[in-house]
């Protein structure tokens, strides 16, 4: 399965936007936190988990999705939210804790909900799996061919919720795609010290579903694996497990001293940057011109800049807003 020129440009846009978003967020996060790093200080306080490097997992899957397909994501959600089409202004305002945010500032960066595009994420490891399974169940009951995608880290593949959801999705033949973003580290613990198998896609056999492994953060291979999985799900042929070997450039959370990571690891990863690789492919193999790629990049960056400006200019919530929306 080969992407069309339009699909390549779509993925490049999603990835470049996500990368620029995370790099911009990294700087915004550090405002007010220097020289003394106080986690509660600045315009973007609390924890921040950035996804730079993991863009192929988002773009290569979401290029196949519609608005009515559901995506559930993790505590490291920005690249997936962007690829799913979450309102960038409202998302950024939410991360800035503003009243114009997706939840009026109640959720913050780990709890982004946009029902217009059926996107949600959670801060608890493994808890994306159950709700995606449920969205698949709803599609089946409603008689549509919508699908659901659950994003998880490789650490989550050792959490009970993951295993239960795989079994349930397979047993009931639900249209769910489980996408594991293997970025090699569960905070400080490498995969070799947490997981009994080197490749989680083999676990699919235990749940009687296809398992696919994508190596080396390859956007085109993600595109292919996801495309087949989405088609299978839409046909009613059930779930798929995909594990993508990917990388995160930043620490687990911003401020992570990363004492556990070899010092030159990130430099080596940047030499294989997936966005550079996609751009080269688009231009060399798919007839995209440098000018078209540059235009796409600059538009993506402009959207991100506008979103951050929107967030900065937006008002804070009133303190008593805290009491609203506990119940429907």
């Amino acid at each position, binding site marked *: 399965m080969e992407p069309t020129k339009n699909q390549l440009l779509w993925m490049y846009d999603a990835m470049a936007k996500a990368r620029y978003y995370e790099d911009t967020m990294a700087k915004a996060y550090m405002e007010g936190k*220097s*020289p*003394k*790093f106080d986690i509660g200080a600045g315009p973007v306080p609390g924890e921040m988990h950035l996804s730079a490097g993991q863009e192929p997992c988002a773009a290569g899957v979401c290029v196949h999705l519609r608005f009515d397909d559901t995506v559930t994501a993790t505590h490291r959600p920005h690249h997936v939210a962007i690829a799913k089409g979450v309102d960038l202004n409202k998302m950024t305002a939410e991360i800035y804790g503003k009243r114009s945010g997706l939840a009026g500032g109640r959720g913050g960066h780990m709890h982004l909900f946009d029902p217009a595009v059926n996107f949600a994420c959670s801060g608890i490891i493994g808890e994306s799996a159950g709700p995606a399974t449920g969205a698949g169940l709803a599609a089946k009951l409603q008689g549509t061919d919508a699908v659901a995608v659950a994003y998880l880290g490789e650490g989550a593949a050792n959490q009970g919720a993951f295993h239960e959801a795989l079994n349930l999705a397979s047993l009931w033949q639900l249209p769910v795609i489980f996408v594991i973003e293997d970025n090699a580290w569960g905070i400080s613990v490498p995969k070799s010290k947490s997981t009994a198998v080197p490749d989680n896609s083999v676990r699919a056999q235990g749940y009687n579903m296809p398992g696919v492994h994508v190596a080396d953060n390859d956007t085109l291979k993600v595109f292919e694996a996801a495309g087949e999985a989405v088609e299978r799900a839409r046909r009613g042929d059930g779930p798929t497990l995909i594990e993508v070997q990917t990388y995160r450039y930043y620490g687990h959370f911003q*401020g*992570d*001293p990363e*004492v556990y990571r070899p010092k030159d690891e990130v430099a080596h990863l940047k030499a294989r940057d997936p966005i550079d690789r996609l751009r080269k492919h688009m231009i060399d193999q798919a007839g995209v011109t440098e000018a078209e790629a540059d235009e796409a990049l600059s538009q993506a960056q402009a959207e991100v800049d506008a979103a951050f400006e929107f967030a900065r200019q937006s008002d804070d919530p009133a303190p008593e807003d805290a009491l609203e929306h506990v119940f429907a």
Partner: protein
Amino acid sequence: MADIRVPNDLWNADETPEGVVANWLYRDGSEVGAGDTVAEIMVEKATMEIAAPAAGRLTITVPKDGVVRPGTVIGRIDES
């Protein structure tokens, strides 16, 4: 008198010029032993320990939250 100095190579000051004294682990005027961990320095979010270079009475010259660079003297030990 022995200076308690932030080591020159404690962190890469080209990347991050400043850190802060995060905690003192003894009160001003305490008796400390050589090698006792007396203070913590934080650079971005990494915390590093500073040991007393000698035994004696501690004088704190840069208190908690004070900004430091590699080489900054943060206190002194009176060995007499």
